[in-house]
């Protein structure tokens, strides 16, 4: 039995790693969503973390832990001057401005010869271990769990629900929004640093608009009202292609297009039937049951 488990682990090691990396990315979008801000610059932050860490281990020969620390700190530092102006705008305008930031980062990397432009950096040493990724996920979840119900957690919820009212309670809303943007940038950068040292390579096109949409979909599908929702979404949507790979021959559709179709259907179903994400499924089932019982007794 242990042999079988070891086989399973060897086969799915990369999937398990990406569940963790995608969880960090989903949480990086959740941080700003938790105070009602739709900021979508996280593919850019992730790219900055990935390139910073890769350059430091390969060119400067820094030890891996220090390079990972830089993958956290560099995007966090970039988030401050970005956030100060863009967090003055709200809603869809904030989303567009931050998507613009992500594209600037991607195009900057494409045109930067030192990092091989569009080809990216290859032959990065593989230094990321699974335990590091999951330790980081656990630490992020712990911090977010401890924020909930604290003075700062209530301030974030107040900003999400009614920002002007929150300001009249003495909450310096811009500081909170900036803190969450910086925390999100740090998590995205961390995920990028891990990914670069797991897949041997980084390229600008891995950090395009599609990537940040994936992160947002993880958070929305899992549930963005509670801190562990994004992790549920990331795990589910990372595992889904593995299952579909086996299903694809049976339905006669190529795995790639099938994955996109099913992802779209899952997103549609969640938005229509589970607006608070997969984590709200148990409660929704209880509500449906109660409604059916009520309807039957009325009839």
């Amino acid at each position, binding site marked *: 039995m242990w042999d079988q488990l070891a086989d399973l682990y060897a086969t799915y090691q990369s999937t398990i790693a990406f569940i963790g990396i995608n969880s960090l990315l989903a949480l990086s979008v959740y941080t700003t969503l938790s105070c009602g801000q739709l900021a979508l610059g996280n593919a850019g932050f992730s790219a900055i973390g990935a390139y910073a860490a890769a350059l430091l281990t390969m060119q400067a020969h820094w030890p891996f832990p220090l390079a990972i620390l830089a993958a956290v700190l560099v995007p966090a530092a970039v988030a401050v001057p970005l956030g100060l102006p863009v967090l003055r705008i709200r809603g869809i305008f904030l989303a567009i401005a931050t998507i613009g930031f992500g594209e600037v980062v991607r195009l900057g990397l494409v045109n930067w010869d030192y990092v091989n432009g569009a080809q990216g950096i290859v032959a990065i040493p593989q230094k990321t271990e699974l335990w590091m990724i999951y330790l980081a996920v656990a630490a992020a979840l712990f911090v977010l769990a401890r924020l909930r119900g604290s003075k700062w957690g*209530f301030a974030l919820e107040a900003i999400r629900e*009614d920002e*002007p009212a929150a*300001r*009249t309670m*003495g*909450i310096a809303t811009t500081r909170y929004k900036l803190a969450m943007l910086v925390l999100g940038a740090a998590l995205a950068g961390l995920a990028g640093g891990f990914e670069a040292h797991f897949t041997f390579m980084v390229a600008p096109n891995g950090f395009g608009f599609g990537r940040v949409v994936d992160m947002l979909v993880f958070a929305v599908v899992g549930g963005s009202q509670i801190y562990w929702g994004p992790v549920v979404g990331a795990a589910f949507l990372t595992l889904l292609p593995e299952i579909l790979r086996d299903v694809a021959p049976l339905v006669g559709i190529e795995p790639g297009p099938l994955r996109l179709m099913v992802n779209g259907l899952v997103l549609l179903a969640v938005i229509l039937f589970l607006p608070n994400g997969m984590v709200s499924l148990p409660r929704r089932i209880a509500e449906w049951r109660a409604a059916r019982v009520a309807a039957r007794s009325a009839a």
Partner: protein
Amino acid sequence: MSPLLSLTGVERAFGGVRAVDGAGFAVAPGQVHGLIGPNGAGKTTVINLISGLLAPTAGSIQLGDRPIHGLPPWQVAALGVARTFQNIRLFPDLSARDNVLVGQHLRRSPSLAARMLMLPSARVEEREARERAAALLTRVGLSERVHEHARHLSYGEQRRVEIARALASTPRLLLLDEPTAGMNPVEVQAVAQLIRRVAAEGQSVLLVEHNVRLVMDVCDTITVLCFGKVIAEGAPRTVAEDPAVIAAYLGNPK
């Protein structure tokens, strides 16, 4: 005694409309000051100007000897001004108690490290904050509704949670924008008593209200606003008999 709040020549224009047009009055410490006037007189705009949600286009607003016009709302709040809203603005998905906990934001100074490390000191601070919140809800007569989501409370109950949330920061000046709108007479009486008690404890109250009975009963001084200008000021009895006030509300007798 020098006033706690004073407005001098305050003006606020929205495009061509001067909602507040050179208004000036002062609120003394520990007093209940009524601000009344016909619809569209600019009362809510004055509250928004004081609390920093709007900046005046001219004039000055002072809290003690400190000018506060142009400060962002959170800084005005930090100087000791709390408010309620005419169109209730509770945080609908938070419980009544959690709404009041948000109101305590300025009073609490817990340590982030203690919270993250789950130290007992953090737990004590949080328990005290929750107890204060529950006590405030008891004070406004909602001890039974502490854990109810704000969205599930009745209109009158929501108004009372807003008052508790505003009191949670122990403000020097409490701005109440039509606190009894939609309340039944029993609830109105309870709010009247609460306002008197708040003032008796030395906090000032600026009360915008349409319920004339309540204003006459509760206020020490009344300012009457009409088309953004102050047309009368004084004790409730004098203001009620002022011909300019009667004309503003009922029209000029021919």
